[in-house]
């Protein structure tokens, strides 16, 4: 039964997360690099260093440190950041909404672009113009998101200075919002001036993230459409007097959507991973940008918290994709 499969997947989540936790934890500690060395002012005494070490629990044996940390995480405490000196959970909760909004916007742009490109490609199927669509998709796919970010930054930020190239919103704007989901909240509250100002900043990083993913969606969907169109039921629909656009939209598309979501949905994780650099390039205040700072500063607790957050997002995405596929495909719902 389908629910059995879902439960099996859910049961596998904790061990996978545990594996991720172990790997990060061990990686950070067996290799050289001392976070304390980076935060002490010059001229600090050995005793000072020792006290700092004890404060962050770094004087304990590794196993002890791991057990302590795991126990804290289980009770919702990710520890204190070494470099920013705030609670890791607070930092994550403050920055995560910015990344989620960016990733959602990028996904929406990518899906729209990808579906349009796939439909254009399939309508041109067999004609010479088809290779223009295929070639364009190939180009978009070969260049990764952070290069698109740099290209867009140069083109629309510098050469034709249409859009801002850093930050999430102009600092002088008075936000006065309750949550950190600025975009979602401002749209829901009908404060479109703020939403517009936010989009103004988000559009370049979002498009950069969206382009390779749009190409992926387009390629998958076009191949699935072509395959579904060759199936008997689609051919027979032609013999029933339906026009080709009608068949593509009503008969073929719902079928082609299933493999596209199953294969492409998982790749949203790539888009999510891409936020790390794209946020960096556009100085966008999300968890990706924060991750790079955390790594450079050897901020162990923050890195651990961030990696776990990404892992949870990745796993959750996989489950959501599975659920959506089940919803789309009646054959998977029961038997």
């Amino acid at each position, binding site marked *: 039964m389908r629910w059995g499969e879902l439960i099996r997947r859910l049961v*596998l989540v904790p061990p*996978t*997360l545990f*594996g*991720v936790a172990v*790997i*990060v934890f061990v*990686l*950070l500690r067996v*290799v*050289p*690099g001392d976070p304390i060395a980076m935060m002490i002012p010059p001229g600090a005494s050995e005793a000072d260093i020792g006290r700092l070490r004890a404060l962050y629990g770094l004087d304990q044996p590794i196993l002890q440190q791991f057990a302590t940390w795991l126990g804290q995480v289980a009770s919702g405490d990710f520890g204190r950041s070494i470099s920013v000196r705030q609670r890791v959970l607070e930092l994550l909760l403050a920055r995560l909404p910015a990344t989620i909004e960016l990733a959602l916007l990028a996904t929406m742009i990518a899906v729209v672009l990808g579906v349009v490109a796939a439909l254009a490609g399939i309508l041109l199927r067999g004609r010479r113009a088809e290779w223009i669509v295929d070639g364009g998709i190939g*180009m978009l796919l*070969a*260049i*990764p998101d*952070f*290069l698109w970010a*740099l*290209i867009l*930054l*140069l083109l629309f*930020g*510098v*050469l034709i200075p249409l859009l801002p*190239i850093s930050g999430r919103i102009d600092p002088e704007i008075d936000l006065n919002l309750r949550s950190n989901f600025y975009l979602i909240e401002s749209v829901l509250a009908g404060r479109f001036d703020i939403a517009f100002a936010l989009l103004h900043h988000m559009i370049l990083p979002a498009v950069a993230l969206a382009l390779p993913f749009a190409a992926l969606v387009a390629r998958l969907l076009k191949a699935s459409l072509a395959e579904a169109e060759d199936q008997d039921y689609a051919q027979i629909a032609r013999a029933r007097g339906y026009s080709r656009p009608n068949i593509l939209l009503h008969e073929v598309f719902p079928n082609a959507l299933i493999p596209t979501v199953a294969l492409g949905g998982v790749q949203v*994780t790539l888009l*999510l*991973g*891409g936020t*790390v*650099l794209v946020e*960096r*390039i556009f100085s966008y205040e999300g968890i*990706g940008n924060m*991750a*790079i700072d955390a*790594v*450079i500063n*050897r901020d162990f607790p923050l*890195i651990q918290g*961030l*990696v776990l957050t*990404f*892992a949870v997002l*990745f*796993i959750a995405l996989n489950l959501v994709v599975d659920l959506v596929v089940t919803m789309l495909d009646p054959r998977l719902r029961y038997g």
Partner: protein
Amino acid sequence: MADIAVTSIATPPSRLLAGLKRGGPRLWLGAALVALLVLAAIFAPLLAPHDPLEQDLMSAQLPPAWMTGGEPAYLLGTDSLGRCVLSRLIYSARTAVMVALIAATLAAAIGVALGLLAGSFGGWVDQFISRLIDVWMAFPPVLLSIVLAAVIGAGLTSVIAAIVVVDWTRFARVIRAETMVQLTRDYAAAARVIGLSRVKLLRLEILPNLVPLLVTLLAVEMGIAILVEVILSFVGISVAGDTPTWGSMIAEGRQIVYQAPWIMALPIVCIITSVIGLNLFGDGLRHALDPVQRS
């Protein structure tokens, strides 16, 4: 029949020709771009007009020679310390090619070994390797390589290690699946019937059939390795000090992008050319090596 793979060296000329024809313009364009990259890397000292580290603060931020204010001595201009951009681009190709070759080969070696093991032995070996891949896939790859490179410390070895540790799964996953598919084919059953041992079967029958796939993956992985190196040097945790890399040039250019956009634009052009070249080359090679057109 369909499953006879073309192995590398012993290919008779007629088959080689047929293969080149199947590769088409992709193969040629890709090979040309890759050759350009490799030649630039090998002959960097001969090609570069200046020492890439030589600073000339008197002529800092010069635009390319054809723009107003450019100087013919600095064909592609200079950066904020007055270093020759063209020479730095050429020397950066060295780092890129070195990282690409070594990292991709090592990642392939590990990935193929584990993929073959998982695909052919099945059982708990497969379970273990598959779970390992699952855990790996739960990391954002970019973040993982950044973490790795940062904790291992700056240097070429650390960049390569970061790429290998992150990317072996790309090979392992595909090779595992493909091995399983190949083992169900008739020729594998036939080989078992005539008494080939498992190791011999893998080496003589399965591996040759994986060659076209492997070559494509390698080419793509080299492109990825180049990109990861760019990312790491952009973030500032790649090779130490003032060794020129495309990524560090972009990071420097980002700071003065309004004053001197070409400093950022030129390495981007180099990266895109290399990556597209490698992709085309891999794609062309796959078509050339694979007598069965698997799309």
